[in-house]
């Protein structure tokens, strides 16, 4: 699975992936991008021009929250998941698994 996923395939699952990265601890934008890339073996490369609008959209829906921190000497914006975000993540994870099972059973040579 070395090829990158098409945009159509990724659409609808990016929120789930970002929420999943933030589920354990607070992250900043660049780190989120790196973790997504590493976790997917380089198949998911989320450009900054897509990542930041997505983060702001999730924040506007109150699924994640942000805070500025300058303790490292650099002003940086950290994101963390909210309770609503965790609920959404759980719900979407369940749906995603059901969806994958359905598709797996349908596709020839897999089910």
């Amino acid at each position, binding site marked *: 699975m070395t090829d990158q996923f098409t945009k159509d395939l990724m659409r609808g699952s990016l929120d789930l992936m970002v929420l999943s990265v933030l589920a354990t601890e607070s992250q*900043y*934008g*660049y780190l989120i*991008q790196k973790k997504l890339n590493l976790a997917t073996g380089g198949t998911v490369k989320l*450009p*900054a*021009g*897509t990542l*930041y*609008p*997505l983060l*702001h*959209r999730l924040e*506007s*829906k109150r699924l994640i929250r942000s805070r*500025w921190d300058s303790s490292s000497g*650099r*002003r*940086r*914006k950290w994101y963390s998941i909210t309770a609503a975000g965790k609920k959404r993540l759980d719900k979407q994870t369940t749906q995603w698994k059901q969806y994958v099972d359905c598709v797996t059973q349908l596709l020839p040579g897999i089910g």
Partner: protein
Amino acid sequence: MPLPSAYENNGVPSRIRREFGEARMNQDEFETYLGLISRLLRLNRSQRDSIGDELRDHMELRVAELINSGAEPHQATRQALEEFGDAASFAKQFESVLLVYRRRWMMRFMTFSIAGTFLVGLFIFSIWPDNARFGSPSASIAQDSGGDQEAKSQQQSLASSAADGPENKVRNTLEKVVSFDFDDESFAEIMKVMRGDYGINVILDHSARDDSLSEDEPVTLQCEDIRLGAGLELMLAGKNATFMIRGGNIVVYSLDELDNSNYFDRRIINVRSLLEKIEKFEKLSGLNNKQPGIQILVGSSAGHVKRVNRGGGGVFQIGVPKSPTTAQNNKPSQNQNDAAVKKLTSGASDTNSIVLSGPVHVAPMKEITAEQRLVDLVQQSIAADSWADTGSGNATIMIVGGLLVVNNSRSANDQIQDLVNGLHRMMQ
């Protein structure tokens, strides 16, 4: 991969390549890039600073990473910018997010506006005179809404009297407009209707029974749209009877007992604002000071004064003055004064042309109070003979603290109430 058009238009890549060393971006060029995004998104300074700091951090981290992995600084910068995307597509991605924020702000604004409007409306509704729980000065009500409001306020003041509670309920019922169609019906039937339809017990007093009004007495009354109380009054008048309200019941008694204080009805009417209006009206018209002499006080010596006549004008006191502030210095004899008084009283309608022969002391006029005027008016215009002090009856009337307290027959008191209400309306 070619550079995005936005960067080419602003010349960012070439300048950044030249000035980017040790993973440090050229601040001016990045500001230009952010400026373009800000213009596309119509960001304010605060939003621009926030997004700029975040993107700047990402860009610097990415360039540093690429340099650490062996890339030349200019190559690292070029790659980082390419990965970032052009300003136009970035702005397009952000636009939907900002739209959500703006829509949410609008919703909040509208919610607060609606809530504020509702609260203001609620406040106005609560302080509106008709709805005020805490009341407002009765004078204000009268000025704003006319005499009917004042009359209403009086009725409310009556209703608030605990002692008049049951009576007031009956009075309100008697104000209902009804139609009568009794043709030779027994009075017992009338009593039954009063009890069944209006919840009022009618009791025949012994005086009425003695006057030959019994339950079997046939009664005839046919009229439409008449107040229940007025109809009953009309019906009983034909039987030489009337009624009073006592203990929440209607007691029918003989008209022969009209002056009997045992059958009197006590009525308290708030005339405070009416008195103020009378005073104000008299001040404006100058009635109390400028009209020709009406009230004349005559005395033969200091301390003995007799009222001869009264009205709205000045007061002449004729007597032996203690201090000689007189027209003449001659001391008058008692006979001279008496002669002057006789002349005055005999020609009372022409007080301006009186010529006093003896020394006359003109004392400062004592004004008639609004209270006295109102009492006089009531006593002269309603049941004139019934008053204890001015007539031959036993009825009493007085004003205490702006309240007119009357003890007279119910019908007389009703007339007084109507008179007061009418005065309120007329003096607006």
